[in-house]
C-alpha cells in the first residue's frame, strides 16, 4: 500500500503547495515553542530560551527550501519551485539583477539589431515576384571589366536569347522637372526610362491603371508616364482618373501608378517609355538590363547562351561594340554584393559584444556565488543533490536571460526607426528594415546559447564545491581561483581591443576619404542643377550676375556634369593620324564648362590658357585636356596646339589650348579619370538635359544654398534647382563605410563600457575577499596609497594580458576589413596604440573605486571580522 500513500501524498502536495508551506510554517513555529519551553525548564529566561531554540533549529529559510525541494522531484512542481526560488533570488539582489539585465540588453540587443540589418539587406528576397529568378546582365569588355550595356546590344540580346521569359532595360535614372498637375509648382524628381515589359519582367503589377503597352513604346507616339505610389498620393492627391502631369513643358497622360514602396535599384517618381527614343550607339554604356529566367533554365545555361550571343555580336560589329562577353548574375548579388563584407563585419562585431556581455554575466554569477556559497552548501548538506542545485542556478540565469532577451527585442524594435533614419540613405534596402520572424528566431537562438554559457559554467563550478571545506573555511577563505578571473577579464578586454581597433581604422578611413586629394578645392563648393529650356540659355549671364551678388559667394561657373561625376559622356579620343576604326589610343570623359570653371573650382591650369569669352560660336573649336591624354597621344611633346577629335560627341577637330590638373576622387584614384573640357559658349547645344551652376562660397554653405534656390526660381521659374555640396557628395560616396564606422564605433563603446563594468565587478569582488589580508598588511604598516596602487596595478596586469591578445586578434581580424580601408594600413601602429591606451585607461579607471575602497579598510575591523 506504500505506493498509494506516496501517490496520495504527491498528489496532495502538487496541488497544495501553498497549504503545505503554511503547514510547515506552523510546524516550525510549534517546534520552536516546544524547544523554548524545554530550555526554560532548564533554567533560561524566555528570551534566552527562544534564542537558543532558534540556534538549535538552524536557518528556517534554508530548512523550508530543503523541505520544498524534497516535496517534488516531480517535474512540473520542481520547475515551479525552481522558478519561484529564482524570482525571489533575483528580487533579493536588485543591483545585480539590473546590471545583468542591462548587460544582456546591450549584448543581445546589439546582436538582434545587427542580424536584422544583415537579414533585411542580404537574406530577405527582393520585393519582386519570384525574385530569385531575376538576373542582372552586363557587358564584359576585352579587359575583363563589367560595363553597363548599350541599347543596341540589349536589343540584340532580347531578340536572340532563349533562356529568359523576359528581358527588359532601364536607362540610367536622371532628374526631371515634373508638376503633379497643370497649375502645381514644378519640382525635380528622379525619373526612369524603361523598355517594353519592364514591370512584368520584375513581376510588379501597377496599383492603379496599367503598364505601358507596345504602342506607347513606338517611336513618334506622344509620351505617357507612370508614377510612383508616393508621387500619386502626395503630388496628385491620389486622384482618379489619373489625368495628366506636366513633364518639363509637356502635359503627359498618366497610365498607371506603381505599388507603394516600389523601386528598381534607386527610387524614382516618374517612369516613361524608352523605346520610342532609345540610345543608338553600341559602345555607349547607359542601360541597366534585368531578365527573368525561364522556369527550369539554370543560371549556368543562361550564362553560356549569353556568352555565345555576345561573341557572335562582337564578330559582326567588331570595334563598334566593346562587349566581348556578358556577365549574368542574380539581381540580389548585384545589389548587395558590395555590402556583404561590411555587414558581415558589423554582425561579427555584434557577436563580440554579446560574448563580452556573456563574460560579464559569468563573472558576476561566480562572484555572487561567493556570497551564496554557504547557502548552497547548507542546501547540499540538507540533502539537495548537486544536480538539483545546478538546476536551480541554471533556472535562475535562464530566467535572467529570458527577461533580458525580451527587453532587448523591445529595445531593438525601438532602435529600428533610428537605424532606418541614419542608414536608409547609406545602405541599399535598409529602408525596408524590420524585425521579422527570422530575426525573432535568431534572438531566441542566441538567448538559448547565452543562457547555456551563463548558466552552466557557474552552476557546475559552484555546485562542485566541497561542503566541508566551505563551512570550515568561513567567509574569507574560499574564492574562485584568480586564474579564472584573469582569463575572464583578459578575454573581454581582448574583444574590446579588437572592436576599438576596427572602429578606429574606419574612423581614419572616413577622415581620409573626406580629405582625399581631388585635384581642386572641394570645400565650400555649392552646386545647383537645373533643367533649362532652349530659351533659357540666354539668361545664363543673368544667373551668374545674380548668384555672384549673394553674400558669401566668391565665384560662379557652369558645367555639364557635377564635379567628380563621370561616366555620363565618355568615349574614345583620336589624333588626325589615327584611322577611324581601330583601337583607340585613349578614352576620356567630356565636360562642357564656362570660362570661370577652373578658377571657381581652384583646379590648377598646368600649361597653356583657360577658356575666355572669345571661345564662342564661330571661333575655332578649342579644348582643355588632362595630362593623361597628353602623355598617351603625344608622349614627351608639348600638347598645346595639337588637334584631337572623337567620333562620339563632336565631329570637328579641336585645338588643345590648355592642360589642367586631373580631378579625381578616393574611389577613382588619380590617373584614371582623363577628361576633355570644351567651352560652354561653343557647345551649348551639347549640354544635354541639365546644367549645373557651381558656386565658390566662404563660410557656411547652408545660407547660400537656400538663397541660391530662391534666386534661380526667380530667374528660371519652371525648373526647380537641385542644390547640394561637393563635400556632401564625397561623404555619400563613402556611405557604406560611414554606416560600418557608426556601427563599429557604437559596438566599440558598448564593449568598452561592458569591459569596464566587468573589471569593476571583479576587482570589487577580489577586494572584498581580501579584506582580511589587506587589513593585516595595513596593520603591518602598508600605507593606503600603497594598497590602492597594488589593486590598480593588478587590474592593469589583468587588462594588459587581454590587450596583448586583443592586439594579436586585431592584427588577424582586420584582414577582413582590408578592402574597406582607405589611406590607412590595417596594421597602422597609431590605431593599435589607441586601442591599447583606451582599453588600459578604462581598465584602470574601472578599478579605481574598488582600489579606493581597499585603501579605506580598517585594519582592526578587518582582522576581527573573520
Amino acid at each position, binding site marked *: 500500500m506504500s505506493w498509494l500513500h*506516496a501517490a496520495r*501524498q504527491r498528489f496532495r*502536495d502538487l496541488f497544495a503547495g501553498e497549504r503545505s508551506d503554511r*503547514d510547515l510554517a506552523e*510546524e516550525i513555529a510549534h517546534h520552536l515553542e*516546544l524547544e523554548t519551553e524545554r530550555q526554560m525548564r532548564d533554567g533560561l529566561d524566555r528570551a534566552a530560551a527562544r534564542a537558543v531554540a532558534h540556534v538549535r533549529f538552524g536557518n528556517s529559510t534554508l530548512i523550508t527550501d530543503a523541505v520544498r525541494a*524534497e516535496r517534488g522531484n516531480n517535474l512540473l512542481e520542481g520547475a515551479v519551485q525552481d522558478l519561484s526560488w529564482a524570482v525571489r533570488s533575483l528580487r533579493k539582489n536588485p543591483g545585480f539583477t539590473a546590471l545583468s539585465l542591462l548587460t544582456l540588453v546591450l549584448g543581445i540587443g546589439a546582436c538582434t539589431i545587427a542580424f536584422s540589418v544583415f537579414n533585411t539587406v542580404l537574406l530577405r528576397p527582393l520585393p519582386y515576384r519570384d525574385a530569385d529568378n531575376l538576373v542582372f546582365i552586363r557587358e564584359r569588355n576585352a579587359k575583363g571589366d563589367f560595363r553597363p550595356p548599350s541599347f543596341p546590344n540589349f536589343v540584340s540580346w532580347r531578340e536572340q536569347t532563349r533562356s529568359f521569359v523576359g528581358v527588359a532595360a532601364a536607362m540610367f535614372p536622371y532628374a526631371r522637372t515634373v508638376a503633379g498637375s497643370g497649375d502645381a509648382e514644378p519640382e525635380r524628381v528622379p525619373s526612369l526610362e524603361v523598355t517594353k515589359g519592364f514591370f512584368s519582367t520584375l513581376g510588379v503589377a501597377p496599383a492603379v491603371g496599367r503598364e505601358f503597352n507596345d504602342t506607347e513604346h513606338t517611336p513618334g507616339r506622344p509620351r505617357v508616364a507612370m508614377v510612383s505610389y508616393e508621387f500619386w498620393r502626395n503630388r496628385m492627391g491620389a486622384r482618379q482618373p489619373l489625368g495628366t502631369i506636366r513633364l518639363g513643358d509637356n502635359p503627359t497622360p498618366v497610365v498607371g501608378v506603381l505599388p507603394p514602396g516600389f523601386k528598381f535599384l534607386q527610387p524614382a517618381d516618374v517612369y516613361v517609355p524608352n523605346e520610342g527614343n532609345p540610345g543608338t550607339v553600341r559602345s555607349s554604356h547607359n542601360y541597366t538590363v534585368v531578365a527573368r529566367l525561364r522556369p527550369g533554365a539554370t543560371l549556368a545555361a543562361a550564362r553560356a547562351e549569353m556568352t555565345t550571343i555576345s561573341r557572335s555580336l562582337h564578330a559582326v560589329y567588331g570595334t563598334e561594340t566593346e562587349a566581348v562577353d556578358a556577365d549574368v548574375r542574380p539581381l540580389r548579388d548585384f545589389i548587395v554584393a558590395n555590402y556583404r563584407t561590411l555587414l558581415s563585419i558589423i554582425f561579427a562585431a555584434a557577436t563580440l559584444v554579446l560574448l563580452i556581455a556573456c563574460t560579464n554575466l559569468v563573472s558576476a554569477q561566480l562572484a555572487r556565488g561567493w556570497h551564496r556559497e554557504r547557502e548552497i552548501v547548507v542546501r547540499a548538506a*540538507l540533502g539537495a543533490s548537486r544536480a538539483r542545485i545546478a538546476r536551480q542556478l541554471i533556472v535562475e540565469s535562464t530566467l535572467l536571460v529570458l527577461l533580458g532577451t525580451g527587453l532587448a527585442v523591445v529595445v531593438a524594435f525601438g532602435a529600428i526607426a533610428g537605424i532606418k533614419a541614419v542608414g536608409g540613405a547609406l545602405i541599399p534596402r535598409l529602408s525596408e528594415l524590420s524585425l521579422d520572424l527570422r530575426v525573432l528566431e535568431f534572438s531566441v537562438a542566441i538567448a538559448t546559447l547565452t543562457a547555456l554559457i551563463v548558466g552552466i559554467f557557474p552552476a557546475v563550478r559552484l555546485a562542485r564545491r566541497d561542503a566541508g571545506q566551505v563551512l570550515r573555511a568561513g567567509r574569507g577563505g574560499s574564492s574562485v581561483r584568480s586564474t579564472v578571473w584573469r582569463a575572464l577579464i583578459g578575454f573581454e578586454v581582448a574583444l574590446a581591443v579588437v572592436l576599438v581597433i576596427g572602429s578606429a581604422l574606419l574612423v581614419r578611413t572616413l577622415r581620409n576619404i573626406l580629405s582625399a586629394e581631388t585635384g581642386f578645392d572641394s570645400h565650400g563648393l555649392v552646386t545647383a542643377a537645373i533643367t533649362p529650356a532652349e530659351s533659357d540659355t540666354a539668361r545664363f549671364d543673368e544667373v551668374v550676375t545674380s548668384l555672384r551678388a549673394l553674400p558669401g559667394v566668391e565665384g560662379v561657373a557652369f558645367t555639364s556634369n557635377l564635379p567628380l561625376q563621370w561616366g555620363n559622356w565618355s568615349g574614345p579620343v583620336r589624333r588626325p593620324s589615327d584611322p577611324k576604326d581601330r583601337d583607340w589610343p585613349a578614352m576620356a570623359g567630356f565636360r562642357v564648362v564656362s570660362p570661370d570653371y577652373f578658377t571657381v573650382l581652384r583646379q590648377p591650369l598646368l600649361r597653356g590658357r583657360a577658356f575666355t569669352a572669345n571661345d564662342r560660336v564661330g571661333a575655332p573649336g578649342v579644348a582643355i585636356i588632362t595630362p593623361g591624354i597628353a602623355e598617351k597621344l603625344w608622349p614627351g611633346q608639348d600638347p598645346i596646339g595639337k588637334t584631337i577629335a572623337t567620333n562620339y560627341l563632336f565631329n570637328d577637330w579641336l585645338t588643345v589650348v590648355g592642360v589642367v590638373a586631373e580631378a579625381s576622387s578616393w574611389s577613382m584614384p588619380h590617373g584614371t579619370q582623363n577628361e576633355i573640357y570644351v567651352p560652354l559658349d561653343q557647345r551649348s547645344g551639347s549640354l544635354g538635359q541639365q546644367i549645373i551652376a557651381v558656386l565658390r562660397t566662404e563660410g557656411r554653405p547652408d545660407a547660400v544654398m537656400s538663397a541660391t534656390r530662391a534666386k534661380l526660381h526667380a530667374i528660371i521659374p519652371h525648373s526647380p534647382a537641385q542644390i547640394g555640396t561637393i563635400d556632401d557628395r564625397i561623404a555619400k560616396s563613402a556611405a557604406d563605410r560611414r554606416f560600418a564606422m557608426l556601427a563599429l564605433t557604437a559596438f566599440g563603446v558598448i564593449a568598452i563600457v561592458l569591459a569596464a563594468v566587468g573589471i569593476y565587478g571583479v576587482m570589487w569582488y577580489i577586494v572584498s575577499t581580501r579584506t582580511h589580508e589587506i587589513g593585516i598588511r595595513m596593520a603591518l604598516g602598508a600605507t593606503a596609497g600603497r594598497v590602492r596602487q597594488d589593486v590598480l596595478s593588478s587590474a592593469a596586469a589583468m587588462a594588459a594580458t587581454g590587450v596583448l591578445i586583443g592586439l594579436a586578434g586585431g592584427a588577424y581580424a582586420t584582414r577582413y576589413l582590408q578592402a574597406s580601408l582607405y589611406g590607412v594600413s590595417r596594421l597602422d601602429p597609431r590605431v593599435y596604440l589607441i586601442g591599447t591606451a583606451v582599453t588600459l585607461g578604462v581598465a584602470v579607471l574601472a578599478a579605481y573605486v574598488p582600489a579606493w575602497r581597499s585603501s579605506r579598510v580598517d585594519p582592526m575591523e578587518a582582522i576581527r571580522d573573520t
Partner: protein
Amino acid sequence: MDRSGDLLPGTFEMLVLKGVSLGEMHGWGIAERIERLSGGVCDIQQGTVYPVLQRLLRRGWVVAEWRVTENQRRARYYRLTAAGKRQLADEISWWRRAIGGVDRVLRAEPREA
C-alpha cells in the same frame, strides 16, 4: 577530534525512521528523541528532521496528521506505515552488517592479514 554532526550518509534518515517507530510523534519530539537516546552524541540541527520527514512521507514510509496535543495546541504527528516498518527493519539489518564488518576490520590483528 571534532566530529559533531558528522554522520555516515543515510544514517540520519534511519534514525528519523527509528524515532517515528517509537510511537506517533511531532517533529520536535522526534529530534528530541534522537538527541536524548544517543546520549548527546547525535547533536543535530533540529530543523533538519523536517526535510527528512518530507522525504519519508513522499516515499510512503510515514504518514502525517494534524492533531491537538494535550496542551491544546495543533501539532503534526508522524506515524510509521507498514512499508516504513519494513524499510526500518531493512536499514537496521544493513546497519548491523555494516558496523559488524567495519568492526571486524578494526579488530583485526596483524597475523590475520
